[in-house]
């Protein structure tokens, strides 16, 4: 992607428009419209470059309705870098189009004022926690006073548990140290899913990892990159390089697939800088890391029937398909029942579930149908966005069950029920 916001000609011409991506694109499957397919979107971006179409509302809709789940990349015989094309295509779009005031405020809030600032995020989520626990949430919901877009966003918020607030810079390993790893905590995960971080830390330490949790680390920048806001993403990436490199780490472990995918691509974001590439090489999804080491024996059985929603940024962006399955298969007592197309996006896709409500919900409803057919009671996944969306899906569809991160079930098998 380099420094230019324009999609590279070489990336675009790699698409031979064979159409083998179509049936792997959630928005094409729903709409049947070529412009809502990977091939169509590449053609549109190409056409904008050539001045054959305008960046008008229709163009925007087709480009913005893309989930950037990158399922198409997984199946493309020609190896088209679709994610890269779409990120540059959006950056180009936002340079050439005038956003409405509300959109500008939303982007400014999300990308500049909130995500990069850990303390502001903590304050916000502290307020939300208070909102839920004080009973105010029940009052607000009963009152129906919130305007529709806010009410929809509010309904996506899961019940918040205690946030993850690291007390130490370095947590020692239990027993002899086998690895020295960094733990990337991210922006939203510690506040919304603190329990996943607690489980990750426990499992890593139990398996001989000395765990570094540098205080200087910040948001990975994934949401900025997906939104076509590269400049802010680069600042965040540079801060993370400073926070983690130079500690002699064997790996930087991350339990959010979306963050991991972006971190592994820091090299591209920062123009192939040496440090960025080294950081990318060190980055390991927690499932990838755990599946690659010899695990301490599990201590108890986990009596759950589960179904795995393969997070897009794990299975497509990072091409990690076997690791979560290997871990789940090793857990005693656990039964995995596969849904049809576990590799198809759930409609979460980062901010997409807020900005593209209708499409996101239609995709989610189809997904919940597939999940219901498995009869599984626990949905397992590997990314906070997917967890939020699937919890919302459970509520919408009236299915009784829960949503867990893979590492939470590994943690349960080590004897702690969260």
């Amino acid at each position: 992607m380099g420094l230019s916001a324009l999609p590279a000609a070489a990336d675009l011409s790699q698409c031979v428009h064979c159409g083998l991506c179509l049936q792997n694109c959630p928005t094409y499957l729903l709409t049947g419209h070529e412009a809502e397919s990977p091939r169509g979107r590449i053609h549109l971006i190409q056409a904008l470059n050539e001045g054959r179409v305008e960046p008008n509302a229709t163009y925007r809709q087709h480009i913005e309705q893309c989930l950037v789940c990158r399922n198409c990349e997984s199946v493309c015989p020609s190896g088209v870098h679709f994610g890269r094309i779409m990120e540059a295509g959006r950056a180009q779009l936002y340079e050439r189009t005038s956003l409405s005031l509300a959109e500008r405020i939303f982007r400014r809030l999300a990308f500049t004022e909130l995500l990069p600032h850990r303390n502001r995020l903590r304050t916000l989520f502290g307020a939300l926690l208070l909102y839920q626990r004080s009973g105010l949430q029940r009052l607000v919901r009963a009152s129906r006073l919130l305007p529709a877009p806010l009410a929809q966003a509010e309904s996506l918020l899961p019940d918040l548990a205690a946030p993850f607030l690291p007390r130490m810079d370095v947590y020692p390993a239990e027993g002899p140290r086998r690895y020295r790893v960094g733990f990337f905590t991210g922006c939203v995960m510690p506040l919304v899913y603190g329990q996943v971080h607690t489980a990750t830390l426990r499992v890593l330490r139990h398996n001989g990892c000395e765990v570094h949790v540098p205080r200087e680390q910040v948001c990975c920048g994934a949401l900025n990159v997906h939104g076509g806001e590269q400049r802010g993403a680069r600042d965040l990436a540079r801060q993370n390089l400073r926070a983690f490199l130079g500690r002699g780490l064997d790996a930087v472990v991350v339990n959010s697939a979306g963050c991991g995918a972006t971190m592994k691509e820091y090299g591209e974001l920062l123009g192939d800088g040496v440090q960025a590439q080294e950081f990318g090489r060190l980055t390991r999804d927690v499932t990838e890391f755990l599946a690659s080491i010899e695990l301490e024996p599990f201590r108890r059985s986990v009596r759950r029937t589960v179904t795995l929603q393969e997070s897009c940024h794990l299975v497509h962006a990072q091409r990690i398909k076997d690791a979560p399955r290997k871990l789940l298969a090793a857990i005693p007592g656990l039964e995995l029942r596969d849904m049809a197309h576990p590799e198809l996006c759930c409609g979460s896709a980062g901010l997409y579930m807020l900005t593209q409500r209708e499409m996101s919900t239609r995709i989610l409803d189809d997904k919940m149908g597939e999940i219901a057919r498995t009869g599984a009671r626990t949905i397992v996944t590997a990314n906070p966005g997917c967890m939020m969306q699937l919890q919302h899906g459970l509520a919408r569809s009236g299915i009784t069950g829960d949503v867990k991160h893979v590492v939470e079930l590994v943690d349960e098998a080590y004897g702690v029920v969260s």
Partner: protein
Amino acid sequence: MNLADRLRQALGPGVVFQGAENVIVYEYDYGLDRGMPDLVVLPRSTVEVQVVVREAQAAHVPIVARGAGTGISGGAVPNSGGVVIGLSRMNRILEIDADNRCAVVQPGAINLDLSQAAEPYGLFFAPDPSSQKASTIGGNVANNAGGPHCLSLGVTVNHVLGVEVVLHDGSLVCLGGKSADGPGLDLTGLLVGSEGTLGVVTEVTVRLLPLPEAVRTTLALFASVEEASEAVSGLIGRGLVPSALEMMDRLALSAIEAAFHAGYPPEAGAVLLVEVDGLLEQVEAQAAVVDAVCRAAGALEIRLAATADERARLWAARKGAASAMGRIAPNYYLHDAVVPRTQLPRILAHVVEIGQRYDLPIANLFHAGDGNLHPMILFDAREAGILDRVMAAGREILTRCIEAGGTITGEHGVGLEKQSFMPLIFTPADLEVMARVRSALDPSGNFNPNKVLPTPGIAHGTAQRAGMPGLAPEGMWV
């Protein structure tokens, strides 16, 4: 009220699309030709298709039916403008009738989805074009599609029992059906392969076949294409009809292996992928014959797929092969020609010579068993004047195939791409009778006009230049 408004009023919101940002993505298929439609309609039912046809006819505009746009000959490219009827939303498998070994599907149903739906009944749909994970049954019917396994089982026309078709006046007819060999003219056979020129197919009844008891898949490596061709002749000479017999040359292998890591050796000069199926005892004996013949022809190495998974990976890679060429060239012209299979070695020598003379790399995939070759001429369209060279080289390859007793397309259809070659294989009288049949079924001439039959002034390789990726002037991206 104009056509778009009338259609919108009749069909409601979200079905009729207008404006470049909506319809420009319907200007292409998988081939090289381009043509912009004026309007795109995505109907959800046969009745809606009838409405579109009636309204379009009243407005006297071309009507182009389109499946998934995976065709290679420009058949679904609306080069004369008009209305594209995209059948992607009519994609349901309506019935699997296991007892009668057939299925009823909508035209937008995906080929592979049908075979997967039939699998629990021990059945499958035989035509398996390389595009089968994306292409539609309607598109397969329009082009009389083939595929690797059509060697022993026949192409699409052998597996279509009946079709429901919307005719030029919007009326609906049902041709053929579940029962075999109905009386009267075989209009079903006429419709298959008619490339959207006779009507819009809105429902298809297809034959399903029982899955074979056993399958053996052999990958044989050769030093050269000549030796691999000798093995092909040897196999056919022994009276063996494999269920599939595929050849790939070195250039094709390099892209395939880069894309799929399925175990194809990029260092081999050529490989054969040979599959035999049937009863367990039968396939063991046949696999032994394959082994012996390949060794006698000088095979360097022979590998037998050990597991179903390994077999699946070999096939996925073979079927994705053409689509993987984007790894080694920005553009390519994928040809489709047929020669009597004994002529394969001779025609290959010609292809090599033509490539050298025009200074164009050519990668080769073949359905070797039925003499169907797919030379892929690789090029970078940004090079000035190269397209003329590519077209001339392609024309020369086809001419050699015809001289060798072959023909201009094995399975991709004529569409826009091959129509100027039609006079090379048909007499004026042949073409005249086709034109008469066509105008008998579509007196309006609005169904996919300027396709299939030679049309003065319509030449492949010219109309598309403006829209082809990579053909924009240098510096466009700066």
